């Protein structure tokens, strides 16, 4: 069977992962708020742990074949790759939401790549940094780059993450200027990284449960 069956996250662990990522994206939202000067709200309602194949199928199913992703790799206590994924048709909308209504279409097209890269970088960095902080161990992150293609194009590009079998698949809602944009965060990790993540989540659960409120 696939790796998905050998390392599983319990429901509570999945809830905990959702919260950890929520903490991360909330930090990102605060950062974006300062950049944009507008109220930006980011939230992750749920997480799914999927095999790479299923995640690719799901992406193809949900976004058709035109997706754009900002991808970053990370090494440290746990290693892998993280991606912020949007339908390509929404990427200009995202850029406009971030930049504001004053810019012309041409200007937006011109800065699209740069704006996407920066936005993705803020969001992914915050998520990963939150995890690193909780582990109290450093993570080294690569420079973000943009990939376009369909779901399997994005997920089958094996990078430095190595023997990736599982994908942590999170829906993300991005609210700027009263507009909702939906996208995904995909985190690909190897086995040892997943074990490390599982430990982190266990610690988080213990902490929140035993909290002297």
């Amino acid at each position, binding site marked *: 069977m696939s790796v998905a069956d050998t390392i599983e996250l319990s429901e509570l662990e999945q809830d905990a992962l959702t*919260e950890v990522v929520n903490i991360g994206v909330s930090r990102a939202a605060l950062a974006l708020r300062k950049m944009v000067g507008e109220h930006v709200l980011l939230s992750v309602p749920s997480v799914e742990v999927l095999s790479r194949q299923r995640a690719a199928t799901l992406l193809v199913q949900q*976004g058709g074949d035109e997706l754009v992703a900002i991808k970053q790799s990370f090494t440290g206590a746990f290693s892998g790759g993280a991606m912020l994924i949007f339908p390509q048709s929404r990427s200009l909308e995202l850029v406009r939401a971030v930049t504001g209504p004053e810019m012309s279409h041409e200007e937006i097209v011109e800065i699209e790549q740069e704006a996407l890269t920066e936005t993705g970088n803020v969001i992914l960095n915050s998520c990963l940094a939150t995890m690193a902080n909780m582990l109290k161990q450093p993570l080294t992150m690569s420079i973000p780059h943009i990939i376009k293609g369909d779901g399997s194009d994005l997920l089958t590009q094996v990078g430095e993450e190595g023997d990736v079998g599982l994908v942590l698949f999170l829906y993300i809602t991005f609210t700027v200027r009263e507009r909702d944009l939906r996208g995904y965060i995909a985190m690909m990790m190897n086995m040892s990284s997943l074990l490390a993540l599982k430990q982190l989540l266990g610690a988080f659960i213990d902490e929140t449960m035993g909290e002297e409120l």
Partner: protein
Amino acid sequence: MNLQSSPRTGGANGEPMRELEDRLSLSLKAAGAVGSWSWDIPGRLLHLDARLARFQGIEPAEAATGLPVARFFTAIHAEDAPRIKVAVGGMLRGAEVFFKSYRMLAPDGSMRWVEAHGRCLFDEHDRPERFTGVLVDITARQRIEERLRIAQTAGGVGTFEFVPGLGTASVSEQFCRLLGLEPAPVIAVAAVNAVLAAGERPLLEGRPLRVLQDAEYRIVRPDTGEQRWIARRGEVLPDSEGSGARQIGVIFDITDLKRTQHELNELNRNLETRVEQEIQSRQQIEERLRQSQKMEAIGQLTGGIAHDFNNLLTVIIGNVDMARRRLGGGGDERVERALANALKSSERAAALTQRLLAFSRRQPLEPTSVNVGRLVGGMFDLLNRSLGEQIEIKTWFDPDLWSVEVDTNQLESAILNLAVNARDAMGWQGLVTIRAENRTVVDAGEGEDLGNGDYVVLSVADTGQGMPADVIGRAFEPFFTTKEVGKGTGLGLSMVFGFVRQSGGDVRITSAPGQGTTVELLLPRSGAPAMESGNAEAQGAARLARSATVLIVEDDADVRTFAAEGLREMGLNVVEAGSGEEALALLDRPEPAIDLLLTDVVMPGMTGRDLVDVARQRRPDLPVLYMSGYPGEVMAENGRLGPGVVLLSKPFTMQALAARVSEMLEWAGPG
């Protein structure tokens, strides 16, 4: 959402504050909210509004002053508490949005489903400061959703909601399962339409529609590759968000239905075909029956006429014959020529009635076991002469040909008849093929004139002009001819037909205009091996004599007198009877002893056959000679007469009568 309620501060502005709170409480109530909370994170205090406090069984006054934050969890269902604790843990550590549904237990013990919408507010250093939110009672909604989910699962119904122009649709899990897709709440329209089989219209249509029409789709499931049928039903509703019309509908699998429908259609189609075939076969049977009844009627009519006509001819021929013999050689030559002409014409008339009888299947047959191939071989010279030099004759006979039981003379005549017809159809040049082969009939249908069994098929095929169907239909009728006036009597095929049917077989014609004609004679296989056809011995003129006594029974006085006189002339004793009853009385007398019974067959009162039956009871060895133009009456099955019974066909000449009588008496007269 900034719905936090401020902690009560009291003091001078207490009244407006209370007013504000009441208004907030009212609007929350109107919004279906159970209540609101505000969690002071650095101060570690939880404030609940009066409604939420009551809901949790806490004194509103106590809740307003601030509670230990752990009280947030007191009313939460034990099974949901851990994940809510994890979620709150996230909020206290910097998460901004709180959106959870869970169960709460009211003081009266009842369970409510609630949905919590919360937010975290941060201080100027981005540290979490206040966690506020409202609780909405969703118990009723939950129940409805539960029912809907069960209905969908049980009914195998998947739902979708879609606004044309958008790339994705909201769908249910069941929707994805029905199409063989990964379950997901949101799915790309392109991915949904990609499961459709080639050539299908889109399931989710990108253009705005006024109505969502019922539709059926063939799909190929991407997970299994299986082909299924899906039905779509739904409605188009105006979109509340104003972005056009919203398509809301369901899909369900109708593969089994389609399959059953298909099988049913197939069955119906087969049924229609079967009924059609059955009707056709019935019509054919009826047609054959009608034809066979017609032939039977014509046969009876012909036979009846031939019978009476034969009686007349017998008398004419007998008397002319007698007149000639009385005249001897010394008469007037002209008278003698006239008598000879009369006799010749009478004999031609007799031959004609013979053929009519042949058709009406009332001729006496003398069947013997015969090999058809050898019989045709023996006729070769005759056939060549009859057909002329321009016609080639080819024959082929199955080397293991079965023998058949037929009257050889009649069969020869039938073959000659067919050959001559072939010649005429070809205008004296072409090819005639005569074949004989074995055939076992196993599927003789209802209404067929032929039973199952073994047959020898003798066929005569020509390369002539052929016949249309309507001509084939009438070909066996007597006097029906396509030949020019004077070229044929129209009796040839009728005779062949009568003979073959009387022999237990059948005749079949295959022909079409321009395609030549093939006539097949099916003759029943004989149990006995074929006899070498010996030539019938020439029978010398009868020379009768001495004191044998013949009883003549004949209702027609003229015929009786003619026969009696002829026999007396031969020196026999003759006793005459006008009826069967009279004859029996004569038979019972001791003197004179009757040596031969010569009787007509068709008589008023007791028939010849009845008479013979009674007479044979008294005298089993009594030789019987029937004289009849209507022999069907005396023949046993298959045209055979019993032992010691001979038939003399009317009309007959004196010589023929004498020959038969002397044969039967086994007695030769003086030389």
